[in-house]
């Protein structure tokens, strides 16, 4: 990962998609949703015949027990509740209470086991398999074909479990009961006393969704944003691939379509201080292009990105990125990133031949000036085909600067981020090269634990016609109800050079995040 989010949003764990990393999905709503589907299974079981019903209910008892056993699962089972109780200094009441619970559980389980065994005998009837405890899986096989696969594979486990001492807790079906079983991955050899129903979830990627709602007031005849819009629903899927790599997907749903905003694998164990990414990714050009929209300190992209990097989306490339640490003396961090992408990016690059590629290089230096203050400097250089003629190229140059101040003791309440970028686009095109310049400067100050105020000045020539310059200024106020939601208002005035139009607008943004807890952006 070559770039860091640079929002002042120290508490925005969730919205820090740039820096979001692996999470263990634990007790998250999605599982519950899955659990809610479980009751559908018994109905299916009834349709499929009594034996299947039996195997299913056995599978349930196992799953319930397994959920209660898993130490980290927030199971509602009494056994799980008893664990913290046992950790307290035990009072005589506690002990008596626990004994009672255990006795009750034992009675309950014995009764249920007896009942199930009786049913088993009745159903197995004259067949020869009745004697062998593991055999009932055999009769279930001929009946199963028409049924969903999960019950049929759950059956052997269930019977094994019934033969073994039941783990605990006669709770109703636990969240990840039969529905979660992955037939192909874990067939019958799953250990009876373990958590077979959960194993399929262990390696699922952590999932998060970030909603980005934007409402706009005022008039703008040039850049027409709708009055209200769910601008983006970003689905993040992240997990470790294997000992050598991790993968991150960010699928960006608009109101009508889906884009793969990013989808890449990161090789984290390369030699020579290298870090490589392959796939589709936001390009490490400048300070903010590599950031997702929702981690920016503004609800909109600055004019430099809009005019010089292809529009509100910025530059997203598909290809390869390699970054190497180049440590400097005095614990100064420096990193060089080289990237090669397909030579296509909307409004920026257009390849006419397969060999027309876009290249980007970024060098970044970071240094702590003091415990509370640090500075980042970045240099970027990129070029690629712009498609106007067979050999026409656009060269991009950038210089970025970020200063952060956050006293450690009072850092929860006060911080300051000042940043600025200068960019130049040299676009070869019929009629002569267009040399467009753009810049912005912004500051964001944290007033209180949940309040931030900021300002931004900006100006950028049009990349295709550098005679025309757009300018803008904006004031931003942000409130964070919690780490997982954010309200933001921006008052923005822009002047569009080509159209000779001025626009004053108010943007209201509401962002909210669910799912895995992401890393805070930096």
């Amino acid at each position, binding site marked *: *990962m070559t770039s*860091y989010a640079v929002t002042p949003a*120290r*508490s925005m*764990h969730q919205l820090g998609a740039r*820096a*979001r*990393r*692996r*999470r*263990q999905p634990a*007790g998250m*709503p999605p599982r519950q949703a899955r659990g809610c589907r479980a009751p559908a299974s018994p109905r299916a079981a009834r349709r499929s015949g009594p034996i299947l019903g039996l195997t299913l209910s056995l599978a349930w008892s196992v799953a319930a027990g397994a959920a209660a056993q898993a130490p*980290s699962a*927030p*199971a*509602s089972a009494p056994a*799980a*509740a008893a*664990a*913290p109780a046992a*950790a*307290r200094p035990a009072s005589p009441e506690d002990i008596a209470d626990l004994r009672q619970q255990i006795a009750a559980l034992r009675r309950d389980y014995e009764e249920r086991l007896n009942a199930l065994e009786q049913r088993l005998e009745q159903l197995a009837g004259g067949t020869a398999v009745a004697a062998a405890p593991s055999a009932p899986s055999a009769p279930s096989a001929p009946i199963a074909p028409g049924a969903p696969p999960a019950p049929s594979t759950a059956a052997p486990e269930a019977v094994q479990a019934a033969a073994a001492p039941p783990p605990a807790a006669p709770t109703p079906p636990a969240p990840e009961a039969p529905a979660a079983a992955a037939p192909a991955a874990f067939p019958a050899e799953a250990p009876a006393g373990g958590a077979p129903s959960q194993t399929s979830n262990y390696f699922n990627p952590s999932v998060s969704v970030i909603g980005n709602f934007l409402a706009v007031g005022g008039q703008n005849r040039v850049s027409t944003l709708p009055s209200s819009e769910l601008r983006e629903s970003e689905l993040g899927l992240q997990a470790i691939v294997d*000992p050598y790599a*991790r993968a991150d997907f960010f699928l960006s749903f608009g109101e009508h379509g889906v884009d793969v905003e990013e989808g890449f694998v*990161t090789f*984290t*164990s*390369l030699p020579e*201080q*290298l*870090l490589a990414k392959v796939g589709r990714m936001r390009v490490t050009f400048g300070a903010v292009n590599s950031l997702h929209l929702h981690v920016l300190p503004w609800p909109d992209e600055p004019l430099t990105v809009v005019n010089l990097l292809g529009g509100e989306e910025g530059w997203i490339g598909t290809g390869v990125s390699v970054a190497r*640490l180049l*440590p400097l003396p005095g*614990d100064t*961090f420096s*990193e060089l990133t080289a990237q090669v992408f397909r030579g296509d990016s909307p409004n920026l690059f257009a390849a006419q031949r397969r060999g027309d590629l876009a290249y980007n290089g970024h060098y*970044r230096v*970071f*240094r*702590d000036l003091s*415990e509370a203050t*640090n500075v*980042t400097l970045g240099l970027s250089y990129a070029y690629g085909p712009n498609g106007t003629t067979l050999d026409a190229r656009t060269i991009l140059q950038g210089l970025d600067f970020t200063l*952060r101040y*956050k006293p*450690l*003791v*009072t*850092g*929860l*309440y006060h911080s300051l981020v000042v940043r600025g970028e200068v960019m130049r686009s040299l676009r070869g095109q019929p009629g002569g090269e267009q040399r467009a310049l753009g810049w912005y400067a912004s500051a964001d100050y944290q007033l209180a*634990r949940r309040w931030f105020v900021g300002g931004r000045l900006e100006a950028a020539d049009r990349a295709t016609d550098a005679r025309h310059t757009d300018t803008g200024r904006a004031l931003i106020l942000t409130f964070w109800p*919690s*780490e997982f939601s954010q309200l933001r208002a921006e008052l923005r005035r822009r002047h569009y050079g080509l159209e000779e139009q001025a626009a004053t607008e108010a943007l209201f943004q509401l962002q909210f995040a*669910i799912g895995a*807890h992401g*890393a*805070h952006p*930096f």
Partner: protein
Amino acid sequence: MKAPRPSLRRLTATALAAAAALAAPTAAAAKLRVVTSLQDFASITDAVGGNRVETFALAKGYQDPHFVDAKPSFVLQLSRANLLEVAGLELEIGYLPPLIDQSRNDAIHPGSAGYLDLSIGCDILQRPSQVVTRAMGDVHPYGNPHYWTDPENGRVMARAIAARLTQLDPGGGADYARNLAAFEARLGAKEKEWDAKMAPFAGTKVVTFHESWPNFAKHFRLAIVGTVEPKPGIPPTPSHTLEIVNLMRAQKVPAILVEPYFDRKTPNYIAEKSGAKVLVFYPSVGGISSIKDYFGLFDTDIDNFVAAMKGTR
């Protein structure tokens, strides 16, 4: 031709100095480099590792351990580390995972010998026994991560650290074992002293700012009856503050424990209304400069508490 001679001598001297300079880092490089998320872990590691280790803590003792910036300078520290010690239980979830990925250091990835989750084996409290949602605030689904405030957990951690250091540096095994024994002996003696100091106040009710103290309260038998935060990670609200004032009046709670990095405005207000005392309670080594090690942490907090309680009696 006199000139070359002094310059040759100078050259030799320079070369020697350079060699010495090179040799020094080599000697240092022989030490195990341990990066810890908290200064508490660094302190215990120093005690157990002695001069065979050098430690670096990412979070300072006076900053909120939940909100540490993922600074690139930490990437450098991690890229050189032999061992990374973390609190686990998602305490570091906001900053450490991206740092580990960027460290280019395979040895400290979770699952490697160079990654040590110190919560393993410790007495972890408040493991959720029901389904957790964020309606409960910023809850930690694996249990309360502030477990190092129980000195018995300090013992567990020291043993885990000694075992891991021995695994990574078998040649130092005897040293680590000796240092661990000394640490445990001192901890045992100190625990007796602390327990004796706190014994008269067993059962004392306290309100804390954040849920940082269940392990401390359990060990020293304090009763936490409320928190200034309405929910973990949610700043105080007027209605909740009023509830806490009423609760403290009704139950005659004598003290509010506040971590050094929280704003004391609300606790001071509550104290004023309820007649309780606000006590800055340090959750970590380095919380103030006088807390130099893990023993100093308890010395300071306990002495402050005892002094405050004596004042109220």
